[in-house]
């Protein structure tokens, strides 16, 4: 193992600049002549726009320009798009109403974009924005997920009758019905997956500059995927030709999915900077983030499991209503479909599964991926249903899981819901997690708590997720508009140091360290001589960005493939220099060696020879710089068991997490310290969903949780420290043997926490967030 190579908890190379205040986030960037933009947003959830009068705003002090949807349309700027097609049960593609970046005659949610005001100072822009007069014709609003498609509901889009985006069935309804008809027992659960606001700590921002000489737009954006932004803004929104559009995403302060999407503000700022021929900067404040960032989750579902007399799962049936918000966000359709129902097998051998997802429009902010994206919804539903089934069968939750686990010798395992799992040892993770949690000692602890008048509960969740998104052929077949490979370039400089250009993007994940560790392991270059570069379409050749726990599993492999090319070329150069046959050259630890001798040449010397090719293999290209693309054969399937132990005060309903243990299979770990940090953060995201976070609209479509005072983020005093371990398996489809770790905690935690609470209270179910009020009410009901 190389020093600082694979498996070492190397301190992060990127930390220093953040620690001394030298991070470079989009809002930290200021350019000469910069103007400031404010968006005029709809205060109504659903209204026609009868007229917009910008006269007073345009005349206000310091105002540079005011633009509306008509101005955008007149310049041929096309509406925002949704990139994944889902086929509805009528054989037609999902309904996709137009999503103009600035409203065209109608607004459909509070925060919908009506106009942009650009001024010399931010204060002037804010003042002028209040002078834009909009005459609205207020319409009734639809906000409730469960009833949005009911008869007689207010219609939101003409293109989507009954507010339905798609009805998407999966599986054989009749076969599943027959299995239910002959089952020993049917367990059933109605549940809600609570709507969340993703809330990365850095609000979104955009800074656009237009160069009249090169006719190039440079957009600094808070994005997780700069090249994807460039592709969509160019090919679909007609902002500028792709080669005349540069997207820079510098340091980005967290994403968690919310910064994947191509947002209205980004398109409008990009267009406006050319229009006014001045740099234009927009930075969201937190309330704007609450009302205009894409939200997550928001499902209402009924789940049923058919069991035989031994507690084996015979069939599963799920009916889901998923809220997509007012318009389709970039990947909005994909989340409650492919990223959701394809995970219904979980860790189990359930042979038959039928699912129907009815996706609906409402007068709320668009809903899209948020850490986990579909997989937390699937896992919460399944792992809660399994606990209900255990209770119905009189089995321990551990026992019913063991009876239904996919056995270790059954991999690769084809589930009935499309996915073919790569590798897994679910009992190994479960065993380790139970030991870590001292599951066997729980009853003693529960008795002790009872003597103090407290209720103890323990719950587990055994999840599996599909990561390493994704094989292009598979997602293409499903209706994705893009490929999901990744690219890398590994460039030696003549002096022997290395620049690695990756198409993934780091916004907290530590790629600058993890990828450098890969290089030091594969090429033997000291880690301090390696620089990882990302987040600029003018530097990196291409890339699809970071989401779906894909950066290492896809992007890391692309880096490794570029390294293989360098080694192959280096052997030719070394063979020539060492006067040996190419086939006799071996490469290890940074040195090309003639096999069986001590004659060797360091890779830095080889790089120098490649750039100063005075004595060089005939016909070989100079230079030591290779790029590679990698398109995976399959998703990766991280899995694990999380165990949560809670104590509840029945007098107040306050839930305290006493102990949380997680054992995950992420395959091989490159930097265990970073992986553990990802797990911690993911778990707290999941604990937030389970205990604290609930995004609420009132019946008129006003967001009543639009600040950190109204929307409860997890804080340090609400969560414990964690016990983390691993039960790795080796995924055969991934050349590096890695699976991805960024979303696991957010997927595993919600059912573990809620299963612990229902166990403590002795109730069948409690909806999230399990606030003290909800828990207290449930405790009263149970008493």
């Amino acid at each position, binding site marked *: 193992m190389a020093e600082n190579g694979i498996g070492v908890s190397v*301190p*992060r190379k*990127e*930390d*220093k*600049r*953040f*620690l*001394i*205040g*030298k*991070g470079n*986030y989009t*809002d*930290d960037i*200021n350019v000469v002549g910069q103007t400031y933009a404010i968006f005029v947003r709809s205060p109504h959830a659903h209204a026609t726009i009868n007229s917009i009068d910008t006269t007073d705003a345009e005349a206000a002090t310091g105002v540079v320009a005011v633009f509306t949807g008509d101005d955008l349309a007149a310049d041929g700027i096309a509406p925002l798009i949704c990139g994944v097609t889902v086929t509805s049960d009528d054989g037609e593609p999902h309904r996709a109403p137009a999503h103009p970046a600035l409203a065209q005659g109608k607004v459909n949610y509070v925060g919908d974009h009506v106009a942009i005001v650009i001024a010399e100072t931010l*204060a002037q822009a804010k003042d002028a924005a209040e002078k834009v007069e909009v005459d609205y014709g207020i319409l009734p609003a639809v906000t409730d997920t469960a009833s949005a498609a009911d008869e007689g509901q207010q219609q939101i889009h003409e293109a989507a009758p009954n507010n339905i985006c798609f009805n998407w069935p999966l599986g054989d309804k009749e076969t599943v019905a027959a299995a239910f008809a002959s089952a020993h027992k049917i367990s059933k659960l109605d549940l809600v997956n609570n709507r969340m606001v993703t*809330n*990365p*700590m*850095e*609000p979104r921002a955009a800074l656009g500059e237009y160069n009249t000489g090169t006719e190039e737009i440079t957009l600094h954006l808070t994005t997780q995927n700069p090249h994807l932004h460039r592709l969509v803004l160019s090919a679909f929104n007609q902002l500028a030709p792709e080669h005349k559009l540069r997207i820079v995403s510098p*340091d*980005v*302060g*967290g994403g*968690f999915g919310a910064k994947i999407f191509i947002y209205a503000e980004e398109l409008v700022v990009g267009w406006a900077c050319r229009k006014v021929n001045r740099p234009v900067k927009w930075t969201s*404040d*937190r*309330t704007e983030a609450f009302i205009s960032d894409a939200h997550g989750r928001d499902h209402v579902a009924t789940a049923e499991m058919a069991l035989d007399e031994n507690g084996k799962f015979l069939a599963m049936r799920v009916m889901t209503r998923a809220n997509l918000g007012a318009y389709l966000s970039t990947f909005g359709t994909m989340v409650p479909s492919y990223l959701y129902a394809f995970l219904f097998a979980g860790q189990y051998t359930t042979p038959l599964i039928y699912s129907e997802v009815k996706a609906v429009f409402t007068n709320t902010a668009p809903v899209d991926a948020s850490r986990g994206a579909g997989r937390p919804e699937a896992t919460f539903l399944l792992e809660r249903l399994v606990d209900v089934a255990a209770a119905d069968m009189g089995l321990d939750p551990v026992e019913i899981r063991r009876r239904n686990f996919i056995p270790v010798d059954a991999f690769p395992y084809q589930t009935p819901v499309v996915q073919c799992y790569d590798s897994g040892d679910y009992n190994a993770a479960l065993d380790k997690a139970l030991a870590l949690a001292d599951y066997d000692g729980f009853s003693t602890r529960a008795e002790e708590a009872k003597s103090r008048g407290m209720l103890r509960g323990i719950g587990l969740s055994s999840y599996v997720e599909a990561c390493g998104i994704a094989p292009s052929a598979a997602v293409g077949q499903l209706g994705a508009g893009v490929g999901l490979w990744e690219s890398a370039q590994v460039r030696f400089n003549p002096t022997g140091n290395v620049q690695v250009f990756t198409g993934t993007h780091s*916004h*907290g*994940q*530590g790629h600058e360290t993890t990828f450098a560790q890969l290089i030091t392991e594969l090429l033997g270059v000291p880690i301090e001589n390696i620089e990882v570069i990302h987040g600029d379409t003018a530097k990196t050749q291409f890339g699809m960005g970071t989401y779906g726990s894909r950066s290492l599993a896809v992007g890391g492999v692309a880096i490794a493939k570029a390294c293989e090319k360098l080694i192959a070329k280096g052997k030719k150069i070394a063979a020539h220099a060492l006067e040996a046959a190419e086939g006799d050259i071996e490469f290890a630890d940074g040195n090309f060696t003639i096999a069986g001798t001590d004659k060797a040449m360091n890779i830095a010397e080889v790089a120098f020879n490649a750039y100063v090719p005075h004595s060089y293999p005939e016909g070989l290209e100079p230079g030591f710089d290779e790029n590679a693309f990698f398109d995976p054969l399959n998703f990766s399937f991280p899995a694990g068991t999380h165990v949560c132990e809670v104590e509840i005060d029945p007098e107040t309903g306050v839930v305290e997490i006493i102990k949380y243990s997680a054992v995950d299979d992420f395959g091989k770990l490159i930097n265990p*310290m*970073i992986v*553990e*940090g990802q797990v*911690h*953060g*993911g*778990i*707290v*995201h999941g604990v937030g969903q389970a205990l604290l976070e609930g995004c609420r609209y009132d019946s008129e479509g006003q967001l009543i949780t639009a*600040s*950190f*005072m109204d929307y409860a*983020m*997890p*804080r*340090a*005093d609400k*969560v414990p*420290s*964690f016990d983390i371990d691993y039960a790795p398996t080796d995924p055969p489809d991934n050349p590096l043997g890695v699976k991805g770790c960024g979303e696991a*905690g957010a997927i595993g935690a919600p059912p573990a926490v809620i299963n612990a609470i229902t166990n403590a209270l002795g109730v069948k179910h409690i909806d999230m967030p399990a606030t003290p009020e909800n828990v207290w009410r449930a405790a009263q009901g149970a008493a």
Partner: protein
Amino acid sequence: MPVINMRVNGNPVTGEVEARTLLVQFLRDNLRLTGTHVGCDTSQCGACVVLMDGKSVKSCTMLAMMADDCDVTTIEGLANGSELHPMQQAFMDNHGLQCGFCTPGMIMSALDIVERNGNDLDEATIRMELTGNICRCTGYHNIVKAVKAGAKAMGD
């Protein structure tokens, strides 16, 4: 417009500001000290914490004029040349940061916590004291470890 004077990270600074200018705007926009961040607009997240005359304040919640004639310390003022402050070093050693956005506020709050509670901090104290700082990345586990280690190192 009013003129204000203060010492920021030991350096005397002067500036002309609108009366409504917030301290964080003065630091970020006038002085270009962009290490202090704005993560919310309701004094909840703590990304903007700086020290004023040695005490932690949320610089988004006070006017720049209120810091007139004060000593202000921001994240940029902690390291001694290339040597990190012990609290900064502890955050690195314990992986107490991911995206880095909340980090300056966390560290400035941590210094205030040490000032008021000493160098030997238990987990419960640290967690209670950090409730005014929100982090979405780390789940706090490693921030708590970092503050504990940093506090100890500051006493050594």
